[in-house]
């Protein structure tokens, strides 16, 4: 099979795909790097000039930058905690035999299929709106002052919305992990005198370790770039209370027309994402080894 000839043919045949992927990745990256060193404002087209590190200095010293950084980490961390803990418990529940299991499982997965903009708008207008929202009505019914979630606790509200979207994903992955657990191991633990809680802690959780790692890594990738939910609910406000890095870059480049500053922010975001990735792999990467 693997003769010299067939290997050469294989290389030739995968080269278009490799070139396409490389181009897709490298060209935007290089352009972003290039723009980040230019004074490039859309209001003054054709006046681009080399600006050195100015864009970076401005972006890093912007008081909104630190807020956005903290918000990004809080958003990612908060959603990860809620979805992994909630997903584990939900998966444990769904793994039990009960009547109507099939329907319930489909219902639980459903939020994952709702588009981020749509779900954020539904949450904003139908649940969290202090006048018309369900929560507002609930507060009224209890005789309490309605709580304006999106202006009084904007970041927490967005964490809630995003968690609602990602909980099904975590549940689904963890449910399949639960289903692959050898029942004889649980029975052996039962014979060994382990009560239900110990069985969960010593047998089920270690078995789930790899699945939880996968959930955390995949979700982190997507959560670092949350954008639509912020755009349609709070617009990053009040002030910078719910601005994350993605949203800050959007404001810089498209609301202030400063492509150079936005590109510098983008490069910084890439570096930060890599730092997060290195930390994550250090902490939980060993779970992926067989």
């Amino acid at each position, binding site marked *: 099979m693997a003769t010299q000839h067939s290997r050469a043919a294989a290389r030739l045949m995968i080269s278009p795909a490799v070139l396409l992927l490389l181009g897709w990745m490298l060209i935007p990256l290089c352009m972003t790097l290039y723009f980040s060193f230019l004074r490039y404002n859309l209001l003054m087209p054709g006046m681009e000039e080399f600006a050195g590190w100015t864009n970076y200095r401005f972006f890093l010293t912007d008081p909104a930058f630190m807020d956005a950084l903290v918000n990004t980490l809080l958003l990612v961390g908060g959603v990860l905690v809620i979805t992994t803990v909630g997903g584990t418990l939900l998966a444990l529940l769904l793994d039990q035999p009960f009547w109507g299991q099939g329907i319930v499982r489909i219902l639980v997965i459903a939020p994952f299929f709702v588009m981020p903009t749509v779900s954020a708008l539904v949450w904003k207008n139908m649940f969290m709106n202090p006048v018309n929202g369900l929560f507002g009505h609930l507060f009224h019914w209890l005789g309490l002052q309605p709580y304006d979630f999106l202006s009084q606790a904007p970041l927490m509200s967005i964490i809630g919305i995003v968690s609602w979207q990602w909980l099904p994903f975590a549940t689904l992955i963890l449910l399949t992990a639960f289903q692959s657990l050898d029942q004889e191991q649980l029975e052996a633990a039962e014979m060994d005198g382990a009560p239900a809680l110990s069985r969960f802690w*010593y047998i089920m959780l*270690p078995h789930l370790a790899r699945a939880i790692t996968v959930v955390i890594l995949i979700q982190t990738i997507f959560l670092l770039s949350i954008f639509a939910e912020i755009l349609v609910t709070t617009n990053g406000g009040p002030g910078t209370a719910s601005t994350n890095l993605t949203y800050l870059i959007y404001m810089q480049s498209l609301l202030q027309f400063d492509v150079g500053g936005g590109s510098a922010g983008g490069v910084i975001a890439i570096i930060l994402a890599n730092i997060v990735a290195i930390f994550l792999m250090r902490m939980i990467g060993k779970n992926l080894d067989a």
Partner: protein
Amino acid sequence: MGRITLEKVTKSFGEVNVIPPLDLEIDDGEFVVFVGPSGCGKSTLLRLIAGLEDVTSGDIAIDGTNATELAPAQRGLAMVFQSYALYPHMSVRKNIAFPMKMAKLPEDEQKRRIDAAAKALNLTDYLDRRPGQLSGGQRQRVAIGRAIVREPQAFLFDEPLSNLDAALRVGMRLEIMELHKRLTTTMIYVTHDQVEAMTMADKIVVLRAGHIEQVGSPLDLYHAPRNEFVAGFIGSPKMNLIKGEVARSHGAATIGVRPEHIGVSTTEGPWQGVVGVAEHLGSDTFIHVHQHGMGDEPLTVRVDGEFTVKHGDRIFLTPDETKMHRFDTNGLRA
């Protein structure tokens, strides 16, 4: 102490009745083997005793106290599973320590028992490995070690050797028997392999469709099978069961003759037939003999390994009258 008594125990899964009312007495220190074809309910019976399944009705008593409603861990029984059911993320040491950790035994006592078990089972060098790094036989020993350290009233084995290759199976069989002689703890062992049952058991329980067909020592079952099923199941190769005219001439509806109880001659004998397949084992040869007027099934006959016959040869057979088993029309021993 490990005296286990089952009284009118039944088990149904929904409409399906797996175990009809069943009584069984297992004495302290006995090595009891449940044997039967697959699907006969032997594993279910073991799981009922272990407490992993609830009985539908009836009582299970361990050492005179009613254990029917007790949780598995409180019955003082240890089980070795077919898949070993080791905890893959724990080292061998932690696997063995797990039941003691759950029982909150003091650390030094745990260590003492782990060392003793590891020494007895040749696991001392492997204590810090994970189950995934061990061979099948070693995993089996870890599973046994995990059972031993609990110092249970009785051990339950659920087809523990069926995942091992043939050579290892014989070795582990001896090790388990050795263990039983040393610990003198009650052991209940489930298998579908009648050779395992014959070699290991003090008492064999032959099951078919949840019914106990016969209980007795291996030699009792070999010499005096209570019915045709037991006669056909115990012994290797199978007993020859012959119906029809020949059986009637011996005063029974069915007669059973074991392959080792038939004499072979090339010159004379009451039965004659044509040699079919011959299986040479070296010491013995099993010849399948096709004969006329005694049913379609060929008779299996054991001869000395030196005895040579060719396919198609005509030979004469002489059954040993004194070792012939006679069964009536209901299949029961006459």
